[in-house]
């Protein structure tokens, strides 16, 4: 029998705020344990939460970037469950009135454009970090209460590839939008994946299995593929898939049962009395919309249509925000987009990967790259000379013109100098001259070579050719 998998994601993303969601404690990854904590994020008696304005702005901007409708009225709820990483033993979250509703992500999956729709985005608070030692666990509350938003997709994906493309697009958009760095190593982007399988043609979805809390895209892909196979195998063997929560063990490449439907939590949601509802006006939404940055798709589009770059170049340049921003900055001083693109995709990326540096640390600033390209376009230096200057600056820093002088890379185009070398070459090489006049056009290249040699490579090849032709054709 043919089976079809249905996948939905709940993606938790830590917003780029200075302080936590409901208290003034700093969020700092890797700080000394329990040094950024206060009565509020430790759940001490009498402590109260107050909303972080910036977090609300960021989640709403994320919503706008993902095409959500911003809920004009949203509220807070308590989600009750006992766990050592949840200081109050309830999580402040949004149950029935989230900040963002709907939305969609359109992305290319194996050559075809697909649109994955969202159910909602809601704001909540992060949990503390547990580490396990012999016979005990240790809790560090530095991460407890940091701003965490949850992007909930509809069950609209059907393969690990879909899920991967979706997550990649979401990550890229969040980074472009300055919403989050989505650094998975730091747990800034984690996903719960819901997978179900049903015989093709069957209307209702199969039993939903939730795989909890994964950050690596690779693991998520493996987990989904494993889970789809597992469920199909169960159905094939005439069994039924149980609705349950599973974890993924990357070492064994398997999912394992964590919680059955029976011992599912009863979260006892109810409105958070310590926090007031949020009302967001049209004006506010439009003000935020106006501040939204251009997204990769839009930039890519513009590079092709307005700057006339090939699709390929546009794709490479926008794949990563830092690179794209560098290109933008260079174009602010340059005209020749293709030349800028060539340098970034060529010299820049080669040297960056050789020395494994981020583009932000390149000594060749956008201004300097623009200057190098300007020198080439003015024929003051050759493309080769430009590459030399680029590499020199990349390694040692410095100013393009100064390096050009120092390395004597400037090309000579002024006629008097060229004329001398040209006459000399014609006088000293009668034979090629004869051959040329006899109609062997190629022989002029030998004379050309002589002139370049005499000029020690500084002569502008175009100008030399012109000069020789004048004299010989006369």
């Amino acid at each position, binding site marked *: 029998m043919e089976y079809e998998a249905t996948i939905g994601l709940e993606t938790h993303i830590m917003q780029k705020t200075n302080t936590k969601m409901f208290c003034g404690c700093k969020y700092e990854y890797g700080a000394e344990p329990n040094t950024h904590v206060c009565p509020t994020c430790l*759940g001490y*008696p*009498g402590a*109260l*939460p107050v909303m972080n304005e910036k977090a609300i702005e960021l989640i709403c901007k994320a919503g706008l970037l993902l095409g959500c409708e911003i809920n004009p009225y949203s509220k807070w709820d308590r989600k*009750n469950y006992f766990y050592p990483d949840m200081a109050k033993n309830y999580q402040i979250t949004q149950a029935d009135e989230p900040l963002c509703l709907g939305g969609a992500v359109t992305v290319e999956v194996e050559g075809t454009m697909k649109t994955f729709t969202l159910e909602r985005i809601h704001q909540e608070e992060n949990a503390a970090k547990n580490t396990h030692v012999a016979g005990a666990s240790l809790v560090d509350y530095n991460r407890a209460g940091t701003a965490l938003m949850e992007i909930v997709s509809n069950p609209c994906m059907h393969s690990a590839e879909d899920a991967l493309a979706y997550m990649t697009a979401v990550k890229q958009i969040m980074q472009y939008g300055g919403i989050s760095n989505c650094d998975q190593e730091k747990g800034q982007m984690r996903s719960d994946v819901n997978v179900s399988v049903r015989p093709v043609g069957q209307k209702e979805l199969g039993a939903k299995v939730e795989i909890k809390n994964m950050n690596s895209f690779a693991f998520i892909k493996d987990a989904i593929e494993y889970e789809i196979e597992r469920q199909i195998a169960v159905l094939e063997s005439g069994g039924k898939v149980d609705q349950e929560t599973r974890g993924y063990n990357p070492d064994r490449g398997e999912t394992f049962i964590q919680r059955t439907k029976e011992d599912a939590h009863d979260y*006892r*949601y*109810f409105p958070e009395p310590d926090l007031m509802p949020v009302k967001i006006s049209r004006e506010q939404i439009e003000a935020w919309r106006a501040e939204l940055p251009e997204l990769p798709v839009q930039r890519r589009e513009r590079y092709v249509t307005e700057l006339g770059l090939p699709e390929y170049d546009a794709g490479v340049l926008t794949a990563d925000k830092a690179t794209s921003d560098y290109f933008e900055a260079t174009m602010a001083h340059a005209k020749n987009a293709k030349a800028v693109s060539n340098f970034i995709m060529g010299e820049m990326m080669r040297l960056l990967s050789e020395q494994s540096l981020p583009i932000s640390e390149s000594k060749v600033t956008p201004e300097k790259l623009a200057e190098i390209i300007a020198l080439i376009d003015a024929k003051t230096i050759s493309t080769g000379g430009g590459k030399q200057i680029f590499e020199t600056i990349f390694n040692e820093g410095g100013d393009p013109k100064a390096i050009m002088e120092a390395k004597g890379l400037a090309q000579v185009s002024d006629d008097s100098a060229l004329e001398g070398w040209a006459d000399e070459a014609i006088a000293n090489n009668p034979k090629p001259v004869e051959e040329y006049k006899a109609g062997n056009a190629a022989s002029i290249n030998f004379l050309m070579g002589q002139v370049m040699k005499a000029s020690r490579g500084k002569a502008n090849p175009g100008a030399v050719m012109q000069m020789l032709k004048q004299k010989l054709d006369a």
Partner: protein
Amino acid sequence: MADLNKLTISELAEKLAAGDCTSVDIVNDVLAAIDATDAKVGAYLTLDRADALAQAKAADERRAAGERNPMLGIPVAIKDLLNVKGQPCTCSSKILEGYTAPYDATVIAKLRSVGAVLLGRVNMDEFAMGSSTENAALGKTSNPWDLDRVPGGSSGGSAASVASDEAIVSLGSDTGGSIRQPAAFCGCVGVKPTYGRVSRLGLTAFASSLDQIGPISKTVKDSALILEAICGHDEKDSSSIEMEVPAFAANLPADPSLAGMKLGLPKEYFVEGMDPEVEKAVRAAVEHCRSLGAEIVDVSLPNAKYAIAVYYIIATAEASANLARFDGIRYGMRLDGKDPAELYGKTRAAGFGPEVKRRIILGTYVLSSGYYDAYYKKAQKVRTLIRDDFTKAFEQCDAILSPVTPTPAYLKGEKTADPLKMYLDDILTTPINLAGNCALSLPCGFASNGMPIGMQIIGDAFQEDTILKVGHAYEQTTDWHKSRPAL
């Protein structure tokens, strides 16, 4: 000794200003009174004498440096659920054993800034859950008027300390009557401010949408004085309302006339089962207000009778979440277990008393899957009806008069076996917390057994001014508040 402990804030403020006494003198007299009578009353849980005297000395120095302020140097007893930096905050529960508060509640910071002396920490029902201070794990408090009777609750220690002159004034908290009822039982004045008037930051939460901190004092004017110090917007409490604080005390007129005032009398508030002596005393007090020039009008609060049902759903639901943090992990008592679940179960079983367990379980149940709409959601809707009743009533009057409790203070142990019976006594006070407006309780007579009877003056939201004015006028023209228990 000069018995300075027997005086009021306003009397002491005059003496201090005139240089007739120092704050240290006052604290010494209060400490002496505690030594003399607290073995019987049992109001105090913890008392740091050296610290109290040091604060008094500091207050005297501030005065010597020219600072003037009615609360400067006045000792205040603190209900044991307010966080005071460096002090325990037991909420009269075993589960907070070993906890030291690392911060000051906003009201405490405000009292420090005006130079009040934070005296000792007084007893209460565990986590403010109770009406008799019998649900206290760390001490037993008696009613100064009859040591065999309860002081009321949950702010029983706050009321008993003031009634026995073991404190000049005290802070309590009121979620369903916990300031007004003990004030009535002990013959004191108590004020439940409008929700949002006083910051809840640092008040260990029982029911967040109902809790409010307020004073228990010897006179209405004293309540006005300390309210000026503790009210005001706090950006650290999202439910705190941005609104300037009137000069409550200064606004109290010297002339005790109530001419031009309309006072409402809700027929529903003279419930069946009410002690006839209470009804008689309150009706007499109403007549007294009429004689002061007030116009008495009938008002109706038809949904008030549902208040207990609504209150015990909403309050316990919020409490079930608020008290989840007491889990033996980050602070307080811990009984170890093989895993966190076992640790929680054992710690909370040993740390909480029966009434707290009962209410947590009730609150957990009304929120649990399948019951939310039937209980919690419905209670929230009826809460709206109760609030609308008051809105309508205050279109016809400036304030509402009623009893505070159906009976005067009862004997210890009389109601402990029957929780529902104990809950029903809150019928006259819980509607005000549900509606969020303000109310004042003050002495209006004595029962034949000598126990004080209180009258409740209910005001619209942020109309503390009005109820204080009515209470002050009544107090100026009666002597009930002057009687003291013989200890």
